Structures are given as C-alpha cells and as structure tokens.
C-alpha cells in the first residue's frame, strides 16, 4: 500500500500485529452475494470515530489481539476504543476512550490487549483508502484489502494540530464513554426456523459454550450442548442474517458474524442481537459465553438505549471540539493559546 502524494500526511506502520483498515461494512454487498464484513465490534468502532469527530462510518484501524505500533509524519488526533490495551505515545501512557493528540514523528503503540479481542483506533479526518461498493472493509473471499504489514503506509486525509496544552487537564476530555457490561452474555431472539428444533432449543441456554480456535470474522464455532434439527428434507439456500445461530454437521455450534456467506442452507435456530454481536467480537477462543433469550421488544429497547448513549457522546464531543476551536484547526501544527 502506498500513500497518495496528495495526502495531508502519511501514517507508517512499524509493527502491524494483526491490524486492518475497515469501516462499518459493505452494506451494498449482500445484494450481490458478498458479505457485509466491516468492524466486528460496531459499537467500539463508532465510539472511536465519534471521539475524534469523524462520521461513524469513517475508515479506521481494527486491531485484533496483537500489538500495533505506528508513526505519522504530521500531527494527528487519535482515539482508541474496544478491548482495553496499553496505549502509549512516545512511551508515555495515554488513556483509551478519549481523544489523544499525537505530534508528528511520535511513536504510537497499543499493546497488551486484554479483556477483549479487538480494539479500534480512529484518526481524525480518517484515511484515504480504496473502496469496493462504497466500503474499505477487507473481504477475504474477494481478495480485497487485507492485513497491514510493517512498512505499510496509510494516506491521512487531514492533520490535526495538538489540542492539548498545559492549561487543559485530562478532565476536560473525560467524555464518559458508556461502558459495556462485562461478562460474555449473548442475547438472542428466536430464529425463523426455531420450530425445526422443537424441544431441543432449550439446550442453547442450559450451559456455557466454549469458543474454539477455528472462530473468525465469518463465524464463531463453539462446543456445548447442541440443539438438534428434528425435521428432515431438503433446504434451499436462503439469505442468512448476521448473528444466525446454526447447527451444521459436526459437533460444534456455529454463530455467523459479519463475514458470513450471505446465503446458506442450514436452518436458523436463533439470531444474536446487534448489541451482542459486539460482545461476540470481543470473545477469545478458549473463553466461555452464555446465551440468553430475549424478546424482540427487549432487544429493540436495548438497541435504542445504545443509540441514545452514542448520540449523547457525539454531542459532548462536538461541544468539546467547538470549545477548543479544533474544528477550524489549520492543517499545519498550531497549539491553542
């Protein structure tokens, strides 16, 4: 990847770990048989972008499990959300879930992700990256996009002069990002084919499931009590929703995530709620999770509450930036008086 000559700056990856550039997904894809993909923890990706004043769907970095280190040749404003990690700028610890100014040439590192699997790092102004059907999200099947490597250069759309100085303390930026409840509880609503599984559906809620290492962005595989399809007969391929809980042949439960093939021929027992898909994005292989049945109304109420939280955060960030005059910052270095 070569950064464009017309970019406002270049971000160079020093240590890539398992990081890719993504966004909220390719919503036009499924119509053409292509999965939506995009950030697996949608909420954390939105939070990271909101914290730097970007549109929710702006391209950003998705960091999975491993350490990331990079350096930019212009001043930038970044924010990290998602799994907890140790964020440093030139070796000095900086907070996650807050906007953090980084000066040109300073080394940014995110290490020791824990309590979750994926973190999201947004840069104010975002990146100039190729799009496919309107999205930069990598698609492993189509061979579009992919993981960054040491030396990858990412074109920055804008530079942001430092907005921190001696007069402002970190408290100003205590933006109060709403925390997600800990513990891996995954809410599901009834799937369209739940009747095919008759009385075996209850098994889904009896015991925790152990997530196995073959899990990825396409789907999570887990061992535990398996509901059984009680009907027979040929099933035609149909569109399957992200979050579909299926029981394919074998001894594992399959929960489809955003990289799922858009059509499949397995009956759908249950469907993970959008909020709990974010929980699944943070579960590591070897960890256990529990399913919890919720009604559609409960799930909708929770989704609405989450939207309100994000709206509140967006407003708070906007007012902080307005107060700092950050929105009109010229593209060259300038520290607020």
């Amino acid at each position: 990847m070569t950064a464009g000559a017309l970019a406002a700056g270049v971000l160079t990856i020093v240590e890539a770990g398992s990081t890719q550039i993504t966004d909220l997904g390719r919503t036009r894809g499924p119509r053409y048989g292509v999965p939506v993909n995009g950030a697996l923890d949608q909420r954390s990706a939105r939070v990271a972008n909101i914290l730097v004043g970007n549109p929710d769907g702006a391209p950003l970095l998705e960091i999975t499990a491993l350490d990331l280190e990079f350096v930019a040749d212009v001043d930038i404003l970044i924010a990290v959300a998602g799994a907890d990690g140790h964020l440093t700028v030139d070796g000095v610890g900086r907070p996650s879930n807050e906007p953090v100014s980084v000066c040109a040439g300073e080394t940014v590192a995110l290490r020791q992700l824990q309590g979750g699997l994926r973190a999201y790092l947004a840069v104010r102004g975002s990146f100039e990256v190729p799009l496919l059907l309107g999205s930069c999200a990598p698609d492993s099947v189509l061979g579009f996009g992919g993981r960054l490597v040491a030396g990858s250069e990412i074109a920055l759309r804008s530079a942001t002069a430092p907005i921190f100085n001696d007069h402002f303390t970190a408290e100003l930026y205590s933006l109060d990002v709403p925390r997600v409840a800990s513990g891996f509880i995954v809410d599901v609503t009834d799937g369209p084919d739940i009747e095919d599984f008759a009385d075996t559906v209850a098994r889904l809620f009896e015991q925790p499931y152990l997530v196995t290492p073959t899990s990825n962005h396409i789907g999570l595989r887990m061992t535990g009590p398996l509901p059984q399809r009680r009907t027979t007969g040929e099933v035609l391929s149909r569109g399957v929703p992200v979050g579909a809980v299926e029981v394919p042949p074998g001894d594992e439960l399959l929960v489809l995530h955003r990289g799922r093939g858009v059509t499949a021929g397995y009956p759908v027992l249950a469907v993970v709620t959008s909020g709990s898909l974010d929980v699944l994005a943070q579960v590591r292989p070897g960890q256990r999770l529990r399913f919890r049945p919720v009604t559609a109304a409960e799930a909708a109420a929770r989704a609405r509450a989450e939207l309100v939280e994000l709206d509140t955060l967006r407003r708070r960030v906007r007012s902080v930036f307005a107060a700092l005059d950050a929105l009109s910052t010229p593209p060259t270095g300038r520290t607020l008086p």
Partner: protein
Amino acid sequence: MAPASVVISPSGTSAVRVASALSDREAGWRLVHHLARFVDAARVPGVVCVIPTYDAALIEVDPAEVSLERLGDYLAQVVEGLDHDRPLTLTPRTFDVPVLYDLDGELDLRTVAEAQGLSVQEIVRLHSDPTYVVRCLGAPGGSPMLDGPPFPHPVPRLASPRAHVPQGVVSVAGRQATITPAAAPGGWPLIGRTPLVVLDLAAEPFVPYEPGDLVRFRPIDRDEYESLLGTRMVAR
C-alpha cells in the same frame, strides 16, 4: 379472502424473511425477486439491503429507523400489488460455461455418481443437458445459484466441508447447482471446473449475470480447458 402469498417472519432484530407461500415454485421465485427490486427501487427508509434467493427474500434493516412489525405490514401490502406472473427478464442473456468434468477422480464426481446409482458419464450428461435459470446471487462472491440437474435424488453435502474450494469449480448439492466465482470454504460436492473467470472486481456487480439469466454447461477436454483458462465469462 385469498390465502396469503407470502409468510413474513422476523429473522433476528435486524432482518425480516419474506418466504413465498405459493405452490408454484416459479411464481414464488419471481415474486420474491420482484419484491426485492421494488424495495430497492423504492429506497424504503431503514432498509439496508435485500437478499432475494430461490423462494424467499431476506430484508435487512436498521432497526433504529424502522420497526420490523411496521416493515412487515408494509411488505405485505407491497406483495399484494406485485404481479408474480410477470417475467423477471424479458430478454434473458445466455452464458455458455465450458466445464472440464472430473473424469480423473480429483474431485467428487465419482462419489456423486455412486450416490445417484448412475455412471459418471450419465451425471455429466444430466448436468450439461438443461438450460439453467440463474435463481439468485449467493455466497461466495456472487455465485450463480441454479436449480439442480435432473438427478434421481438430492445430492448429499460433504460430511466435512473443504477449507478451501478454488474459484471456477462447478458444484451440486441438494437440488441446487452453482459455479464458484471466488475461492472459499465449501461443503458442496465438486464435479468439475470451468476455465472462465467469473469475478471482476472493477465492475458492479462483480459478476456478469443476474437473476433470470440463463446458463448452459458444455463438457470440454483438458486441452480446451488449458486454452480457455483465464477467459472472462460473457453472455452469448
């Protein structure tokens, strides 16, 4: 009152499945595709994407913008106004697909033949004889989803799916058949390979056919396969 022509059911909190309840499969297929086109064209607020298949359409929504109940009511009304006798395409295009059938036993052709109680040659004949209708675009990568060849029995899926199925393979499962435009894992038995390149990421959509177009398979030998390798798939 006439029986409803579709069954509308929530498919999680962000999608609705509209399944045909018509006894005529062709009419049901046309109905769900007309519905998909209507919803696409109408730019219904809150609708993110429509995935029409053989007998159903999955309609993905942003639940913050539209409730599944209201959307269901709306879709039921739309369905009432659709003419499921109207053809999807007045002038379907035909795609000729040369296939090197798996006569050397590298893939699953022999297993498929044995399960049907037929010879390998009969399987090739039955697969390459019909003109297929592209029923929908599916996974992976916009595969042309077809009806199965007129085999006596449905084709069992592989007991354990392959981790890597290369692009261009021709496969069958149940009462379905397809060509795989992009390499992906897969559980369908593979009976041959086409030398044609199906996927073109510079185009939108990435594949040259659309639902309602026609596909014909033509057996070729290895020499012809080699000479056609990399040719783009185009209509007649």
